[in-house]
């Protein structure tokens, strides 16, 4: 479910625009950030060129955004920066088939003075097929950084909005100096979400309105055809909704319908059957019951790249009575069934892709591993991340595999990509290389002392809109840690406090998470940082909004104060 998070106080802090000071790549670069070459060679790496293919030792040369050679005896151009790939694994860059990374919802237009909620203007009612994701996308968003960090090099971005939000666009997740646009006007983004307080307000209204818009687009086309080839015909009324819907009605672009569960899948398919447009459903979370339908209807399928939290399963206690055990079993069964769906869908022969909308890119690998453990093959998972997604958005000519001539989009890891220890070391997107720090995982409990984290910390976090901060209190509780964190109350009234959970320490790394309730919904925030003495530096990840730096210092008075 998408919610207007930008309206909630907490997220209102993160206004756009502060990032946007354009970094121009002119000939000279006083910032010193410009790379000296656009040619790279990754030598002697284990290359998995396409889903399911065996890894082969090869060297890859990329130049000006294109893979110019892949193989064992390739010539390395003199201008190439060579990166020794001997211990590295290289995969095609991932493609997010339905994304909202870097997308900001445009301001709602002002209501006209004669506004009537039973018959609002299309633009206010969430019917804006003429809008384009290109106008809403910002490459410098931290969401894009997070997505790229998770291995994604290309994203099919969809505009944010109401029942008919607008047209999608394909972006490569390259550097800030470019528009990064590969193709605009790719698909129509639609959902079953109604507009608050006006027509259509609910799913039933949305479905009726969708039929209405679709059929009248058809009729408008007929009228225009008659008008343009005859005289004596009344001028047809041309409005931007029907104009922008024309490509959909003519089958030139598909409708990307946001659906969450099997019932919504059926609703989107029933509209498609009735009206006849090309359909891709995206954002699926529960679809076990419609695997056959997804197969037989031939619609495009994009799963939400997220598996359910296993906290509930893990918190199930051992010695409980029969009734509670029965409840537990049903939750466990549901959990197992949920994570097994992707495997079943692949087995049924549906070539699905993934979407990161409303999912945390940093958890993508964890989710994929859960799906793989529950039966999804690694090659099917890889196909979903690369080739399937490329075909679904019409990009298989240039993306999805590591081949000569394809766009230089690569994911370079320290191990086989889905293995537990593997980490992403580089991401090549649009021929630019992005480096990531490799964390050396220190084993816990091997006699190696971990850092002491207990205490009261004052923290500040930097957001685009300025800094904010509060107190973080961590207490040792047997072998575990617990505590609280304070922050500016999103509702605008002073300070709020939440308990922290999932506190874990690995070496000098501390991580924990907490929930902020804003506008009646819970937003989860996870924090991880490196502790050295009484200070910590790290990042704070706010679900779906990206990562922001956080730093903290320990208050030395903690113990004496208690």
């Amino acid at each position, binding site marked *: 479910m998408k919610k207007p998070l930008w309206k909630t106080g907490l997220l209102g802090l993160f206004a756009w625009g502060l990032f946007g000071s354009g970094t121009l790549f002119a000939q000279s670069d006083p910032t010193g950030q410009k790379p000296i070459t656009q040619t790279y060679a990754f030598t002697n790496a284990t290359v998995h060129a396409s889903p399911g293919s065996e890894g082969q030792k090869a060297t890859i040369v990329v130049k000006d955004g294109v893979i110019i050679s892949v193989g064992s005896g390739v010539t390395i151009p003199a201008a190439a920066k060579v990166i020794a790939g001997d211990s590295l694994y290289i995969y095609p860059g991932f493609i997010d088939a339905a994304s909202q990374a870097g997308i900001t919802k445009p301001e709602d237009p002002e209501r006209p003075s004669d506004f009537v909620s039973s018959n609002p203007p299309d633009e206010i009612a969430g019917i804006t097929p003429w809008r384009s994701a290109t106008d809403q996308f910002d490459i410098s968003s931290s969401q894009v950084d997070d997505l790229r960090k998770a291995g994604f090099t290309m994203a099919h971005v969809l505009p944010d909005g109401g029942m008919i939000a607008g047209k999608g666009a394909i972006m490569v997740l390259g550097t800030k100096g470019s528009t990064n646009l590969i193709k605009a006007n790719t698909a129509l983004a639609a959902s079953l979400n109604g507009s608050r307080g006006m027509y259509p307000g609910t799913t039933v209204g949305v479905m009726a309105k969708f039929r209405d818009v679709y059929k009248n687009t058809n009729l408008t086309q007929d009228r225009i055809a008659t008008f343009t080839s005859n005289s004596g015909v009344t001028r047809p009324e041309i409005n931007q909704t029907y104009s922008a819907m024309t490509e959909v009605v003519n089958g030139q672009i598909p409708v990307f319908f946001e659906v969450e569960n099997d019932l919504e899948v059926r609703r989107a398919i029933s509209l498609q059957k009735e009206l006849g447009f090309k359909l891709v459903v995206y954002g699926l979370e529960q679809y076990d019951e419609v695997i056959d339908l997804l197969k037989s209807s031939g619609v495009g399928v994009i799963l939400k790249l997220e598996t359910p939290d296993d906290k509930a399963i893990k918190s199930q206690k051992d010695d409980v009575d029969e009734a509670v055990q029965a*409840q537990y079993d*049903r939750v466990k069964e549901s959990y197992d069934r949920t994570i097994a769906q992707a495997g079943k869908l692949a087995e049924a022969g549906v070539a699905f892709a993934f979407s990161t909308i409303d999912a945390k890119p940093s958890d993508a690998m964890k989710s994929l591993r859960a799906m793989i453990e529950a039966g999804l093959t690694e090659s099917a998972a890889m196909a979903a991340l690369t080739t399937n997604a490329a075909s679904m958005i019409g990009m298989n000519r240039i993306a999805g595999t590591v081949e000569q001539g394809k766009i230089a989009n690569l994911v370079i890891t320290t191990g086989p990509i889905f293995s537990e220890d593997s980490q992403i070391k580089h991401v090549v997107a649009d021929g630019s290389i992005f480096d990531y720090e490799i964390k050396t995982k220190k084993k816990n409990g091997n006699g190696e002392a971990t850092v002491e984290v207990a205490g009261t910390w004052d923290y500040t976090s930097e957001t685009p809109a300025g800094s904010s901060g509060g107190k973080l209190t961590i207490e040792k509780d047997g072998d575990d840690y617990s505590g609280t964190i304070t922050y500016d109350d999103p509702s605008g009234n002073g300070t709020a406090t*939440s*308990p922290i959970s999932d506190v874990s320490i690995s070496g000098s790394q501390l991580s924990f998470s907490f*929930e902020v*309730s804003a506008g*009646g*919904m*819970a937003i989860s925030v996870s924090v991880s940082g490196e502790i050295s003495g009484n200070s910590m530096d790290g990042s704070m990840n706010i679900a779906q909004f990206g990562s922001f730096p956080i730093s903290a210092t320990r208050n030395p008075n903690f113990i004496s104060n208690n």
Partner: protein
Amino acid sequence: MKRINKTFLTFLIALLPMMAMAQIDGEFIKPRTGKFLLQNATVHTITKGVLSGASVLIENGKILQVGSNVSADGAEVIDCSGMVIYPGMIDSGTTLGLAEVSSVAETVDYQEIGNVTPNMQALTAVNPNSEAIPVTRVSGVTTVIAKPSGGLFPGTAALINLVGYTPDQMYAGFKAVAMNFPSSARRGRFDRRSDADIKKDNEKALKDANELMEKAKQYHELSSKGAELEYYPEIAQLAKVISKELPLMIEVNAASDIQNAIKWVKDMDIRVIFSGVKEGWRVADEIAEAGIPVITGPVQDLPSRQSDRYDAAYTNAGKLAKAGVKVALRTNETENVRNLPFHAAFAAAYGMGKEEAWKAVTINPAEIFGLGDQLGSIEAGKVANLIVATEDPFETRSQIMHVFINGYRIPLSNRHIRLYQEFLERSPDLNAN
């Protein structure tokens, strides 16, 4: 063929003696007191078995005599041959008389502003002329608890008989301070608080309750030492719970809340009644062990959890009774308190049995309210609250023929019946202009 049905005829016949006078515009049939002999019925005394061919003699609001050889001795004789007599039913939790039209705020008087308002008296706000009262009593419900709702201590509930022109005439001798035990359940679909928030709210409410009870205790201790304390009506009323003058009627429903409530009252030396107790069946043994009487209902209700068996609410009262809990029933209704016998029937069918179900609407509440010697059964010396019916009054096809409350013979009419009388055969009918 339009045929006038039997009930209507029965009413007509019953009304005949007064019909002559009723021709006078504005004439009204009123409750009458006097000496009545209800002759030759099957009398279900509840406490002393079932007496067939028995009669009940009523005078001055009391039952004088019950048995097979009762002489009329100047009493107005009512032939009850072929009929059954039961005690009037008691609904142990309603808002009858406290709200007339529940969507019209101006007519709703069961809820005050403030979280701690135990001093609010339901008895004051009961409207003796509520249209719902005559509608209710012709079903055989003669006595109800009128209860305020709202915050932590919403007010003081009162037991009333459904006859009288003033609250004092209606008052049936029992009051209790109502409490809504802090709940871990959701208030409904609209309640979107997180689990953590619910827990937080719950803990805070319990802390508040503890502090208030502590204050009440201090108030009681100081005032019983003769201290002249500042005017503090809320705590003064709560202190009556500490002094055991009034019991605490604790609304509690979710299983874990019930367990917490049992713990909460354990060390308090007060009189306690639980009400609601919707998930009582999950912890019935614990309630029984704590010896706390329970007012539960409505019986015709949905289960509290999606996973519960469909009949969880139907079977709750029976399961509690089987575990040894003293159970009284309630409808929690305003205008449809008349359905109490049907709620009781469902409880009976789903495990409680008819006998226990009857007790749950008669002698059990009477005893729970400390009125076991006055109400809840047909015994000489008790208040004359009783009903005469064609058959088991829990059955819908049964017709209630006579109702006595406080010894008053209640006219079997109300707006519903009058509308029936007027409109069964309308005049002018369809074809007139």
